[in-house]
């Protein structure tokens, strides 16, 4: 159901929603960027519409709102284990169409790859999503090429225009919130053309691993793993045990985000590492995003948000790799 209302009214609804929801949205973190006096756009809890960064794409994705960078799985006290409590409120997460598509990929791995993930499931069950439209394309995204430029499985759509707010509420919980407001058809803004255009390589295979492109990009990659951490579809983690200094009998097991580009990712006990070279790691990542995930689940993993290209300190472009693979491998 679509509505038009005054921004002030929307703000008061936004406040009211916080009685039952924790609201997460992209916000500008002043001076928290990689270089001094550089800002970064990341997800955080917000209390007012004006805190939300509506124009710039977030540097890190919405996945931070669902999966913490490090998450306590349980606490140890000698032989006892205690699982921390889940969310006490519902979550409302603001995101864009590409990220809405990324959510499907997170669900695939965490809910539907044979086993379900207890921790993801309990936060996911309480999460609702508010689509932020894109009236113009970001610089590096190639969502149109990936078919992720449009999303319709949102709970809520919100657009602010001057002192007006435009809303499309799909989730029943939200329809009641907007009761009495002026009804109007509202269709989310979405882009139909990006600056960055990608031809998706269709003939990737086991033989692709011998393409010299990997050595070339591997020689540029410094293995920092930033591409994985900003990616809305990367889901890998590593277990980490922590013990408290003041009582070494008490501690916790955490999972922390992992990167397939960093030393140790494929290393087994005894020290053998299956992918030692950056070239192999680069190939592993690109092939996972565009080949083997699709082979297993039937659709590509990458949503074309372009964040990996934005963050790479070596200016490696995932989009350029894809275009070259499409040319060389077909």
């Amino acid at each position, binding site marked *: 159901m679509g509505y038009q209302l005054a921004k002030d009214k929307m703000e008061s609804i936004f406040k009211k929603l916080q009685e039952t929801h924790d609201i997460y949205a992209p916000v500008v973190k002043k001076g928290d960027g990689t270089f001094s006096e550089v800002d970064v756009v990341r997800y955080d809890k917000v209390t007012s519409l004006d805190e939300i960064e509506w124009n710039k794409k977030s540097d890190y994705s919405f996945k931070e709102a669902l999966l913490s960078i490090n998450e306590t799985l349980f606490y*140890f006290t000698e032989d006892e284990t205690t699982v921390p409590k889940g969310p006490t409120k519902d979550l409302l997460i603001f995101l864009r169409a590409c990220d809405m598509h990324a959510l499907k990929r997170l669900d695939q*791995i965490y809910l539907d790859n044979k086993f379900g*993930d*207890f921790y993801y499931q309990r936060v996911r069950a309480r999460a609702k999503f508010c689509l932020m439209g894109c009236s113009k394309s970001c610089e590096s995204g190639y969502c149109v090429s990936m078919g992720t430029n449009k999303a319709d499985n949102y709970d809520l759509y919100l657009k602010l225009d001057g002192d007006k707010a435009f809303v499309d509420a799909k989730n029943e919980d939200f329809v009641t919130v907007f009761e009495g407001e002026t009804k109007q058809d509202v269709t989310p803004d979405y882009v139909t053309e990006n600056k960055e255009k990608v031809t998706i390589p269709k003939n990737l295979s086991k033989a692709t691993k011998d393409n010299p492109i990997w050595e070339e990009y591997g020689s540029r990659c410094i293995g920092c793993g930033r591409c994985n951490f900003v990616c809305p579809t990367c889901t890998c983690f590593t277990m980490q045990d922590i013990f408290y200094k003041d009582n070494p009998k008490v501690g916790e097991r955490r999972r922390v985000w992992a990167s397939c580009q960093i030393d140790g990712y*494929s290393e*087994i006990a005894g020290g053998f590492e299956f992918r030692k070279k950056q070239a192999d790691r680069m190939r*592993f990542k690109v092939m996972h995003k565009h080949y083997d995930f699709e082979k297993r689940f039937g659709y590509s993993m990458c949503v074309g948000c372009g964040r990996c290209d934005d963050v790479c300190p070596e200016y490696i472009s995932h989009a350029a790799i894809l275009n070259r693979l499409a040319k060389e491998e077909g």
Partner: protein
Amino acid sequence: MKNEYVPFPSKIKEVIKHTNLEYTFRMEFNGEVKPGQFFEISIPKYGEAPISVSGIGDGLVDFTIRRVGKVTDEVFENYVGDTLLIRGPYGNGFDIENFKGKEVVIIGGGTGVSPMRGVIQHFAANPKDAVSTTLIAGFKSPEDVLFKADFEEWAKTINVIKTVDAAPEGYEGPVGMVTKYIPDLKFENPKNAVFICVGPPIMIKFTIQEIKKLGIEDEQIWTSYERKMCCGIGKCGHCKMDDKYVCLDGPVFNYTEAKELFD
């Protein structure tokens, strides 16, 4: 939804020392488990390690653990009369039915023998389930031999070749890589042969090269892969090879599938 990440305590019933580096921990476990499956074994503060089941008994599972990482070091130091936290079993494991009525050849390198031990035990105890059973097990040196008592027991009912890569002068047993013994294998009907081969990646590679020289087809060969596994349930991503998660779809693969996988 079940929380798979929380381990449960399991009592250590017995510890069998094979070498200074390798012990078998006999642990309490009630539930379905197959040879070739694995558990995540925890030592709080040090983490978890995936360890394959090396034996299955009534209310018991064996884990043969090699002291190679920080978790396993800690298991060795702190086991006495204690419990370990474990979770599992995970992975597909070996299906004995695939080997029944065949001419079975089991080739293991070092701790690679562990995941196959349940299969060896089955055919040693029920030799009539197979046309013939041959075990070729290779270890680095006489000091590295695992399951010493088992080998004597197994030799009563199945063909056993226990070899070491190198030995001091005067050693009486077979010396040489496992591959040395493959060309001599004889079969009533090679089409009815089945090979199970587990060990370090380099050993698997050369063993399969030798097996193929006998005219054996890919589908007659089975192997089990070792990869880093933090979760065991297809989430952490470390064990993925091509479109397969070794923890979910393996670790046991038929070679028709295994040969297509790449890291």
